[in-house]
């Protein structure tokens, strides 16, 4: 695993952290002052800061440092979280998200000077120490991490080769007296002596003056002190660093004339060292393996280092030992691998269907192994799909920020209600729903909600409401974006559609048809462009994006009371339950989710309407009959409705009765994209491979019903 891969994990964490912060902010806005809530925010920022440092994102690190400073003051109670302060904290979040995105994409970091100033001002407002802290340079110097860790090993080698202390003249004299706390908290003075030896130091004397009688010895106390001489070439910082964890008072370091005591003290030092080694080894609670005898002073061996080096030489494959198994209860999987799994399972479903058919042809369709296989395949498929499922939360958590920006841009006041954010849906859907959803939300605030004064004048609360919800509904996910604004001004929409040449001036349209005009290509152009929603993307693009996901978009609006857009999307794009039907020499799949009922009509239920229109009476409601054969130009299909089967389907534009020859079967099919393999065809949503290896087209019920619906409404109007 290289650093880049770890960095990717870091950015995923950032995303999760940012999402969690949004949640915490929502609670804080609602007046929640639970310490765990503000702690959660602090921890997220803190983690991002840590990673930013590790991966060398200095600007991000500097920014998070300042952010963290303020949050720390809030969480420890120094600052009270007033609404004004919360605004600063939440405002700083947006810049943080930009920082993270910039670091991830390698872009220029956002301009954060103003926000840093606000953070400093907020942190320094009440407390002098905080102000001093804030005035300090924001970023600690960052040490870039090299791509591999091998330099570490070479560094160890360098140390081992450092001078052996022959140039002791004018060298360092060090007194090391660990004292009462010598072994406190797991410390081990021996290790420090070893390290000094590695730096070229020699123990000149071991002072045993403090050593009490045996019965008076406290096992965790240090009674020995050592004098060590080190070569002059060793940097003072390097010597002091050895003792960084101890109380500074345990060492006295002086640079002085080294006494010419080298000759005999190498032997003395060895004995002293052995003494010192023996003492702690005897008194620590756990058995310590006998320490390796230190090498004679003139050529000190890097004793402390020897172990890791040797272990490193052990076979690499053994390194991640079973004991090192990951502790996490979740694992992160490359999406490509998951896609491959989904595809393979899809192929398995097809193969299983083929096998079933072959067995049936040989009068073996009833064997129990086959139904077991079917059952297992289905479960495998569902489990695989569940791996890809993600809560809508990942998308919804970005919405509060969008709303805040919109409030700033439009001067409107918005309350956001979110429901069903834990609703799970396929990752592809989660990923691709963001953009259309953002557009709908911008629309709701920009076009839907009125300015606060207008609202008040109309007897509404000054604060507009945008409701965002997600729920599972009969095998699909339904996402709703609703506002309590002015609703669609149908007169204006119609006038504009006429002006754009989308409809004829004398067209008579139902309210629903007028509402749906906003999805017409070319409708939202110049005149509708504002800073907020007019970003060159019209509602037609939104609808296309939704349709590309196998979804439908519907609109309900009441003038003066608001609008509601509902998106209905499949939970997964890879499989669907379908009814297999025959039309002429072709086989079709009709998605089961669209089917209301199927029936063989009698003459009485059918009424002729115009030269080629037929209506089916379904218990009093009239549904247009649609001949798939005519629609797609298929020969040899049944013409006579009473000899055929009618399948009543429900789509975006109401119901229609599809006329087919026979129903073959009902089963799950794996969707293969027609666009990817051939080209898009109106009325066909995709294709699948049947058990006998033939390709069947999947009917696009929405496209079909829109044809039927329009046909009928026009005919009805004509009649």
């Amino acid at each position: 695993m290289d650093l880049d891969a770890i960095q990717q994990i870091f950015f995923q964490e950032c995303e999760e952290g940012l999402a969690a912060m949004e949640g915490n902010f929502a609670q804080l806005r609602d007046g929640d002052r639970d310490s765990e809530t503000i702690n959660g925010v602090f921890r997220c920022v803190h983690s991002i800061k840590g990673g930013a440092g590790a991966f060398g994102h200095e600007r991000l690190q500097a920014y998070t440092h300042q952010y963290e400073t303020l949050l720390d003051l809030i969480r420890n109670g120094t600052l009270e979280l007033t609404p004004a302060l919360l605004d600063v904290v939440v405002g700083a979040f947006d810049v943080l998200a930009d920082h993270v995105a910039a670091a991830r994409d390698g872009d220029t970091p956002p301009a954060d000077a103003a926000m840093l100033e606000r953070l400093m001002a907020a942190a320094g407002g009440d407390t002098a120490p905080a102000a001093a802290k804030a005035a300090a340079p924001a970023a600690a110097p960052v040490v870039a991490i090299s791509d591999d860790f091998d330099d570490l090993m070479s560094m160890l080698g360098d140390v081992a080769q450092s001078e052996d202390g022959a140039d002791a003249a004018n060298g360092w004299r060090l007194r090391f007296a660990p004292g009462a706390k010598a072994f406190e908290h797991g410390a081990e003075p021996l290790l420090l002596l070893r390290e000094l030896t590695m730096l070229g130091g020699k123990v000149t004397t071991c002072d045993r003056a403090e050593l009490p009688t045996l019965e008076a010895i406290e096992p965790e106390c240090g009674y020995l002190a050592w004098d060590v001489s080190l070569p002059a070439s060793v940097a003072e910082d390097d010597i002091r660093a050895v003792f960084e964890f101890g109380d500074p008072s345990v060492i006295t370091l002086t640079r002085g004339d080294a006494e010419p005591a080298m000759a005999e003290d190498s032997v003395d030092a060895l004995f002293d060292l052995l003494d010192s080694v023996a003492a702690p080894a005897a008194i620590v609670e756990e058995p310590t393996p006998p320490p390796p005898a230190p090498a004679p002073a003139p050529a000190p061996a890097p004793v402390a280092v020897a172990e890791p080096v040797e272990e490193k030489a052990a076979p690499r494959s053994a390194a991640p030992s079973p004991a090192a198994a990951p502790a996490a209860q979740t694992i992160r999987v490359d999406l490509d691998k998951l896609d491959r799994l989904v595809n393979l399972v899809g192929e398995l479903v097809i193969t299983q269907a083929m096998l079933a058919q072959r067995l049936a042809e040989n009068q073996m369709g009833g064997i129990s192994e086959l139904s077991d296989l079917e059952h297992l395949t289905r479960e495998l498929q569902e489990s695989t799909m569940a791996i890809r499922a993600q809560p809508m939360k990942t998308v919804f958590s970005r919405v509060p920020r969008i709303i805040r920006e919109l409030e700033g841009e439009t001067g409107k006041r918005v309350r956001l209600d979110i429901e069903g954010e834990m609703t799970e849906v396929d990752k592809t859907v989660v990923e691709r729903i963001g953009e259309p959803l953002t557009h709908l939300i911008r629309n709701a605030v920009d076009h839907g909600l009125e300015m606060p004064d207008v609202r008040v004048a109309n007897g509404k609360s000054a604060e507009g409401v945008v409701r965002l919800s997600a729920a599972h509904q009969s095998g699909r996910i339904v996402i709703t974006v609703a506002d309590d604004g002015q609703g669609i001004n149908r007169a204006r929409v119609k006038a504009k559609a006429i002006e754009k040449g989308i409809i004829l001036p004398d067209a008579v349209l139902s309210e629903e048809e007028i509402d749906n005009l906003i999805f017409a290509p070319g409708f939202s152009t110049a005149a509708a462009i504002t800073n907020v929603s007019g970003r060159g993307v019209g509602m037609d693009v939104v609808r296309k994006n939704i349709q590309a996901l196998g979804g439908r978009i519907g609109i309900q609006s009441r003038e003066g009371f608001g609008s509601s857009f509902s998106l209905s999307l499949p939970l997964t794009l890879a499989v669907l339950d379908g009814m297999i039907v025959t039309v002429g020499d072709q086989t079709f799949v009709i998605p089961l989710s669209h089917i209301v009922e199927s029936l063989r009509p009698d003459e009485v239920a059918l009424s002729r309407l115009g030269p080629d229109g037929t209506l089916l009476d379904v218990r009093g409601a009239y549904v247009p009959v649609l001949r798939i054969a005519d629609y797609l130009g298929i020969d040899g299909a049944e013409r006579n409705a009473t000899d055929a089967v009618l399948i009543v389907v429900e789509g975006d534009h109401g119901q229609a009765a599809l006329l087919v020859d026979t129903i073959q079967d009902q089963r799950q099919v794996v969707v293969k994209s027609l666009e990817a393999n051939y080209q898009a065809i109106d009325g066909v949503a995709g294709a699948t491979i049947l058990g006998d290896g033939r390709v069947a087209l999947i009917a696009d019920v929405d496209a079909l019903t829109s044809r039927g619906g329009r046909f009928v409404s026009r005919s009805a109007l004509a009649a």
Partner: protein
Amino acid sequence: MAKTIMTVDDSPSMRMLLRVALTDLGYSVVEAEDGVHALEKLDGFQPDLLITDINMPRMDGFGLISEVRGQGRRSLPILVLTTESSDEKKQRARDAGATGWIVKPFHPEKLAAAIRRVLH
């Protein structure tokens, strides 16, 4: 036998960084996500060194250290991961019962040095 180091950090990327660095140094690594999780793993198991983050959900690093020390594991070396190298923070770590600290972001060299100074 490779010495075993337990790392405790709620951030997967930080755990991963430590794992890579420590494995390269020849150590075995056992990971935990927070103090509570670490205590579960420490039940009946003694690593040669414990490296823990401070800010974690459920039980933070200081809480973990005081539990571990309270269990009588007084000679287990413990390093805390800290983002600040101020004397105040260091004193706090020492008071809490840590043997030493590693200042994040850590250079592998610094990490090795810190371990060298505490790992028996």
